[in-house]
């Protein structure tokens, strides 16, 4: 539209030879705008994927690569998602970031990849997650830690 305005001005002032350059410049500007927005949007999609795959608190090395507006977007997205999940089922809430895979068994064998300290399971027992230790734990408690790379599912 802006190109039309400029073209009209050029015509009115009798400088019609400028019209193709105006149109070309406008196309270039539009293309640049598209490339930039595509790049920025792709970054947003990656951050969104991190929320689902990793969790709501991003590791420091990832945060280091995010600019202030991206941090702002991420925190707003987290909030939106959290209030949506809380509202499910008439206010009872359901954590959609759990149960990402169909459950095959109740308990799974896991190996600890790094020291994670103490971990409490439902019946009160406390497990010490030391590097290379193996445990037989309820699947739903381990999901998040497996995604974060703390535990590894041992398939024998």
């Amino acid at each position, binding site marked *: 539209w802006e190109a039309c305005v400029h073209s009209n001005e050029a015509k009115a002032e009798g400088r019609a030879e400028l019209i193709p350059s105006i149109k070309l410049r406008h196309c270039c*500007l539009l293309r640049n*705008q598209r490339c930039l927005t595509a790049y*920025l949007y792709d970054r947003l999609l990656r951050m969104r994927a991190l929320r689902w795959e990793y969790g709501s608190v991003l590791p420091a090395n990832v945060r280091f690569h995010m600019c202030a*507006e991206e941090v702002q977007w991420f925190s707003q997205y987290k909030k939106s998602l959290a209030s949506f999940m809380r509202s499910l089922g008439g206010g*009872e809430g359901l954590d*959609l970031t759990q149960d990402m895979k169909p459950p095959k068994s109740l308990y799974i064998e896991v190996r600890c990849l790094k020291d994670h300290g103490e971990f409490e399971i439902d019946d009160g027992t406390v497990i010490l997650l030391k590097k290379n230790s193996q445990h037989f734990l309820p699947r739903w408690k381990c999901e998040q830690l497996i995604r974060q790379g703390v535990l590894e599912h041992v398939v024998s």
Partner: protein
Amino acid sequence: MSDALSADGSDVNQDDTQEDVMTPAELIAKLEEAWLNEKFSPELLENKSEVVECVMEQLSHMEANLQRVKKGDAKASIHRMEIDRIRFVLSSYLRARLQKIEKFFPHVLEREKSRGEGDPSLLSPEEFAFAKEYYANTETYLKAIALKRMPPNLQTVDMLKAVPEPCLDSFVFLRVKEKQENILVEPETDDQREYVVDLEEGSQHLMRYRTIAPLVSIGAVQLI
């Protein structure tokens, strides 16, 4: 699976005062249908928030029943698995919807705004709020980080044009639940002419989604 459910379901039905009560087995079957349709359809389907709410109620009843059974009982682990499976299907269904909402956000909002009074809603109120927040959040981000520094005439992005629409011409597998006659199939190439097919009950087909989209929403076919 229906055995385990009906054992717990009888408690639920006695408390239920609704006229159109479904058995738990029927409810879960409806959830699975909605889940499969949503997974395999290229566009966002009608929202089934009543099914979602009933299933969540069902899950809390089952959890409560499970607390009453003493630990170590073999039945407890079967019920636990049951609860986990149902929760997985429900979560997967809601996640599939959220992904489509985020992927096609301007189009979804446009469809919802322009639907007629009597038409069934595409988004639950919570999903609508989420979609609006996503739109606003993304727009704010793009403006703050790039658009405000561009020349004045380029400072907006038309989201409806910028975000691609769902591809309704993608092919889907389907199973026919109710016999359908005279379904018009559009030609693929210039050489073909349009033709009609009859869909027999129980038969399975691979067709373009656009052709059978209305049949999915009325429940005459099931995407697989």
